């Protein structure tokens, strides 16, 4: 018997179904526009929810949130630009698939994966919330530090063409992450006296710049069409999509679990979840060399993981009153304004609100299937058929609006354009942008964790125990080493095989 099943019917009022559907559609559209994030989508909506019942308000916000995370996949696949930071790793295989004419299939796969991830995350929230909240608490500064280092070690896996260039890119990203007022030490760093740089490099505007601007420049600089046009309409390619998803079911489930777990950790978020799931999918795959060249399993991993963070993130939010992700912080705030108290008692005293919400989240996730497929189809067709002369200015306009609206700051637009040009130049000389983005996102997490762990370790006189005596930390360190040496090991074996072959020729 599922807990709070009585509330299932409460979630199914016509109003709630309408809110869930409307929320998913609105969220998907907002999430698909680069720069308009899930946090913003939810924040804009908050005043509307004041007049609603708490459970309905939550359903609407949860639906928008989950839709926005999925919507981020469209821009990632069709424009090589993550619509939200969660979709960074979706670009790796999504865009190559679109380039070869399989964009429609990629969008369908993303939709199916998002639904699976969303359901797994919501199931964890329903069944395991209190024990899983303990996971959030087991992660101290040291664990966050090692988690960030683990994320950085993915650079090695992501930049097989040139490890050195990947590392240089990562260092450049780390350097960018130190600009502005430091989060915990409050020092003003590397602003060169400019007001603009006080707030640091905004991650989302950096994403838009680094990923989207080079695509735009290439579109203008070459005569080719943006994406291949298929002569006949092939529908949703749903049968194909289902078949691939079924074959990748282990990958989908593993990635959803990773996404749920990372989602539980406050401050980690969908971008890390997607990257970790991607790297694990690649490590487990029989064909790791196909990743990054349009391998469906790459999309499945990221998209299931990032939607699983939605349910995962609600776990600490509801059980501990600590928001798991930035959109959760907004939702928590909205609940407080309504006078609802989160915390351990929420599941008991306010059971009607919590369970109605959780079942509403299931409902929204399921509605994402039809809604997501239809919108995805429309997005694909319009991106493919629209003439370049219209596509480029429209997307360019969107990038500017997107970069501006993150913090209502024109200087973020300037930073976006500058980073875009840098990204384009670097791309021409063989540098990938993803290591830079990893450095930028993970740098501040690593720095905070390190400084805090060091301070606590020195105060208690146990620095060694702090860095190397914590079991979860050690587990992450082991994963990091594996991820670092994996490409080298593969190269080693490949070379040995080659040597053997050459020797056999010699005989």
């Amino acid at each position, binding site marked *: 018997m599922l807990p709070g099943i009585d509330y299932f019917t409460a979630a199914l009022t016509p109003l709630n179904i309408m809110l869930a559907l409307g929320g998913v559609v609105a969220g998907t559209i907002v999430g698909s526009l680069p720069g308009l994030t899930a946090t913003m989508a939810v924040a804009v909506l908050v005043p509307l929810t004041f007049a609603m019942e708490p459970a309905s308000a939550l359903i609407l916000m949860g639906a928008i949130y989950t839709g926005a995370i999925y919507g981020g996949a469209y821009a990632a696949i069709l424009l090589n630009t993550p619509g939200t930071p969660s979709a960074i790793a979706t670009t790796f295989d999504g865009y190559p698939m679109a380039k070869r004419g399989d964009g429609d299939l990629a969008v369908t796969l993303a939709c199916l994966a998002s639904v699976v991830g969303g359901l797994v995350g919501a199931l964890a929230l329903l069944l395991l919330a209190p024990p899983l909240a303990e996971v959030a608490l087991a992660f101290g500064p040291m664990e966050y530090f090692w988690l960030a280092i683990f994320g950085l070690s993915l650079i090695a896996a992501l930049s097989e063409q040139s490890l050195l260039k990947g590392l240089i890119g990562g260092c450049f990203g780390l350097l960018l992450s130190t600009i502005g*007022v430091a989060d915990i030490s409050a020092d003003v760093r590397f602003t060169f006296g400019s007001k603009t740089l006080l707030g640091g490099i905004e991650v989302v505007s950096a994403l838009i710049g680094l990923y989207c601007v080079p695509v735009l420049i290439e579109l203008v600089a070459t005569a080719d069409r943006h994406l291949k046009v298929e002569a006949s309409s092939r529908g949703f390619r749903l049968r194909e999509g289902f078949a691939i998803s079924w074959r990748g079911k282990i990958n989908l489930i593993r990635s959803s679990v990773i996404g749920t777990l990372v989602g539980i950790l406050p401050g980690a978020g969908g971008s890390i979840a997607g990257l970790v799931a991607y790297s694990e999918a690649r490590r487990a795959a029989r064909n790791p060399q196909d990743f990054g060249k349009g391998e469906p399993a790459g999309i499945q991993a990221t998209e299931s993981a990032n939607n699983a963070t939605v349910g995962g993130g609600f776990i600490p939010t509801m059980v501990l009153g600590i928001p798991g992700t930035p959109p959760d912080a907004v939702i928590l705030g909205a609940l407080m304004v309504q006078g609802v108290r989160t915390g351990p008692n929420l599941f008991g005293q306010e059971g009607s609100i919590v369970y109605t919400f959780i079942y509403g989240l299931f409902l929204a996730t399921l509605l994402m299937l039809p809604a997501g497929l239809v919108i995805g189809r429309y997005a694909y067709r319009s991106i493919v058929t629209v003439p370049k002369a219209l596509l480029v200015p429209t997307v360019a306009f969107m990038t500017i609006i997107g970069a501006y609206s993150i913090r209502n700051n024109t200087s973020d637009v300037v930073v976006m354009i500058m980073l875009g040009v840098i990204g384009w130049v670097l791309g021409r000389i063989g540098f990938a942008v993803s290591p830079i983005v990893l450095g930028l996102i993970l740098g501040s997490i690593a720095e905070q964790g390190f400084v805090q762990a060091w301070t606590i370790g020195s105060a208690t006189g146990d620095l060694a125990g702090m860095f190397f005596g914590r079991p979860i930390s050690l587990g992450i360190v082991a994963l990091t080493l594996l991820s670092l040496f994996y490409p080298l090991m593969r190269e080693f074996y490949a070379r040995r095989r080659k040597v053997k072959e050459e020797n056999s020729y010699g005989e």
Partner: protein
Amino acid sequence: MKTFVSFAGTALAALSLTLTAPAVAQSYPDKPVNYIIPFGPGGESDITARHQQPFFQKKFTEELVVEYKPGGGGAVGWSQLNDYKGDGYTWMGVNLPHIIIKPLQKDVGFKTEDLTTVYMFHYTPDAIVVPADSDFKTLQDLIDHAKENPGKVVFSGSGKGTANHIAQIRFDKLAGVKTTYVPFKGTGAAVTALLGKQVTAEWGYTSVGAKQGDQVRMLAVAMDARHPMFPDVPTFKELGFDLVSGAYRGIAVPKSTPEELRKQISDMIGKINADPEFRKRLENDGMAMLDVPYEDMDAFLKEMTETYTAAAKEAGVLN
């Protein structure tokens, strides 16, 4: 007939308004007012603004639109406040001790006196919080332990040079102890570290007690009198430490805003603050009310600046 009566009523009301209100502000506000929060959504500054929103609309019929301009711990927003038109339609949230400490540390694009604060409407009092199952039942337990183990009591808190940090410095001095303060990014992260037992205790806020409920215990609150939500938690004053502090929030307007309009806005915020329902809502979130109108602002800020500067110098946050 009915229509006529209501029409007459409206006319009378309008007339009385014209008679009492200053000439410049007859129709203010006659369009939505933008309320810029120099932090991201979901923080306490956002939540208090959200609380004000419906009351503003009810009392002054126009909408109060909350916008965000995060970055640099508020510095990005504050350094741009005076670029806005001083027509009464742009408000910006201001926070103490941020607007005092930050410009003293380094050039962050604004000086404290650049900000025209018209009202300080509440504060979130500092409090020492421990996990519910902690051995420290009273503040004295914690002080005794800290005296025996100098530097080994580790506090989490939100940021460096912030209300939490300065409270820790002031308290260490008052109690004659030496403790370690570990800054975290925001109150949420500081609470996570506390509940996860990464630290001994937290220099947090009364709002932590409201949000985390029976997972935590507050040992003392930095208020003049006990908080209505927590009648069992003593104040530092009661226990013999002269410490009243917290994160203070107010509203500022661009410098070009005319004097009369500044006063009028101050009155409006005061009216929202006076609403018993509004007070109840903020207190339920663990916050404490404060009423510093425009005319008292200079004296208030002067006093706060002296206190904060002394503590920040002590901490080495300032040179």
